[in-house]
């Protein structure tokens, strides 16, 4: 057991899986000797060789395609996409090809690849380097979508994703890279598809993921002083989604607030809210609170971006309104 940064947990997962399975290969821009734009793959080329850590041209579509084709023939490729804003350049390979290959072929081919993507803002990174696009992929049958909030989960889920027989979209929020947490040395993969109660409470469930979990915990501490007891439920895996976990939490609290850094409109929080309002309606005692980014592109100016992004204050406000019977505010 050691305390490491989120980014290091990713590195460890890659390293350990590469050591375990020679078919695990990495592809991405600048991931070779430079170790990637965020240093995640540092040392891996030296350790595992040039033919397993493939530094690519700036050709996102070809790179994802290369991973896909190799995966269909037995490789276990992990692609690094520097910012999820750039995955738009490879959407055909992700959405029309990788996601559908198993189904279209009646189960005869599959695409066990992982696409690791940085997401979220790093502060004034503006409109094209800050988005959180996970909701798109949850709408595409055939893809799995993972969004860890801690080093432990990042490591265990990335290992699971690499061993998973299906294409997995793996989101790594930039603001979490330097957060720390405990991780086992040679940890096992954790099964995808299970949420986690991170903090127990009786009045309100905040269903969230990635950095939202940390913001929710902060908000929960503030709300506790108000006498509002918040349960923080870490979604962790958008697809598969842990309906049972959500239900169990709502049975305890009866109230729901969804939270993510992605734009609220059409975000995955809408899906969670819809599941609750459809399948767990009888448990709901209050309007569902929704917190996400405002429906604008990311502004460059820090104060504007702060206004656009979900903040602990906004979470607290919406949580109060939800519990005290006001309408849910986005």
């Amino acid at each position, binding site marked *: 057991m050691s305390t490491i940064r989120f980014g290091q947990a990713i590195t460890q997962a890659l390293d350990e899986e590469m050591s375990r399975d020679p078919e695990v290969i990495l592809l991405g821009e600048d991931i070779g000797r430079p170790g990637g734009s965020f240093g995640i793959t540092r040392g891996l080329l030296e350790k595992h060789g040039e033919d397993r850590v493939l530094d690519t*041209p700036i050709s996102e579509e070809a790179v994802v395609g290369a991973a896909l*084709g190799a995966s269909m023939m037995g490789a276990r490729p992990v692609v690094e996409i520097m910012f999820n804003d750039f995955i738009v350049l490879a959407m055909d390979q992700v959405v029309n090809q990788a996601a559908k290959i198993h189904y279209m072929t009646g189960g005869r081919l599959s695409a066990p690849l992982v696409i690791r993507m940085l997401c979220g803002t790093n502060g004034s990174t503006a409109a094209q380097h800050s988005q959180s696009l996970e909701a798109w992929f949850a709408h595409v049958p055939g893809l799995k979508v993972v969004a860890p909030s801690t080093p432990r989960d990042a490591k265990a889920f990335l290992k699971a994703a690499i061993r998973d027989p299906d294409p997995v979209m793996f989101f790594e929020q930039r603001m979490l890279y330097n957060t720390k947490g405990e991780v086992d040395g040679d940890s096992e993969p954790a099964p995808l598809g299970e949420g986690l109660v991170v903090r127990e409470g009786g009045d309100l469930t905040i269903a969230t993921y990635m950095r939202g979990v940390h913001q929710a915990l902060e908000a929960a501490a503030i709300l506790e002083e108000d006498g509002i007891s918040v349960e923080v439920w870490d979604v962790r895996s958008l697809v598969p989604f842990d309906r049972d976990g959500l239900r169990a939490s709502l049975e305890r609290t009866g109230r729901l607030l969804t939270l993510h850094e992605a734009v609220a409109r059409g975000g995955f929080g809408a899906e969670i809210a819809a599941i609750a309002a459809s399948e767990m309606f009888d448990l709901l005692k209050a309007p569902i609170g929704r917190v996400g980014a405002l429906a604008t592109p990311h502004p460059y100016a820090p104060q504007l971006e702060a206004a656009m992004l979900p903040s602990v204050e906004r979470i607290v406000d919406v949580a109060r309104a939800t519990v005290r019977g006001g309408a849910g505010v986005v």
Partner: protein
Amino acid sequence: MTRAVGERLDTPTLVGLYERMLLIRRFEERASEYRLAGHIPGFLHPCIGQEASAVGACAALGPDDVILSTHRGHGHMLARGADPGRMYAELYARVEGYNRSKGGSLHMIDTELGFLGANGIVGGGIPIAGGAALQQKRRGRGGVAVSFFGDGAVNQGAFHEVLNLCALWSLPAVFVCENNLYGEFTPQADQSPIPDVADRAAAYAMPGTIADGNDVLDVYEKVAEAVARARAGDGPSLVECKTYRHRGHYEGDMCSYRPEGELEQWLETDPTITFPARLAQELGVDETELGEVRARVERRLDEAAAFAAAGTVAGVEQTLEHVYADSIDSKALR
């Protein structure tokens, strides 16, 4: 064209090439009929007229090689040796089909033959072929990956990115462009400022050659050269096959966009007519033998169609199968 047909391959092999071209031709002609008769839903893009490029290219391949194809993929698949019965079964949407009735014409595969898929996206198979070539190289058994695509697909960004990547990494890929002069209803000349796709190879420091796409042996030789190069570790090549589709873009297209006389001119080099003529003339293959070929093809296709017609219709519970390869279905399927 002037080289004798018998110079490179023996007579049974040459007759085999003819048989395969004819199989494709008749498979497609019958598919058109079966579609009109209501047996085949969805799209059909016949490759009638282009059989020589499919058969010539696939004749240059070995068992370890893999193929990525296009929306016009029946010919490539049959040229590779696929079972017309399972193909018709797929078109008929039967469980016995190659894709268990989930793919249809646009997504057909044969994993045993390394046929990794037709594709509904113009250019969509090219990146996958690049990845297949990467894995071939990693395997180190000398296998290559062949990517078929049309003249229209070469204006997609994917073409460019993948040729660059494969050349950079010296991957064993062979890019076969079937230039049939049209993308859908629009002439190639209205889609690209250069007439010869092969001329684009230089941008990736790879060889680009032009084959007479209606001459099965010319295609065979040019692709064989590219395959040899790839197997030797010398990297990818681009081979352009000049050819023509006799029918519409898809079944139902009336081809009103064609200049008068164009089809007629191309019919003169119809490979299913010119090639057996050469076999007869140059090698003395007689009408009896050619007749046997034709009869064999019809018998095979009779059986294939019967197999398809007798196939099983999937139960609706199968709708939710195969979305994921593991069995998380109950969780992920909503």
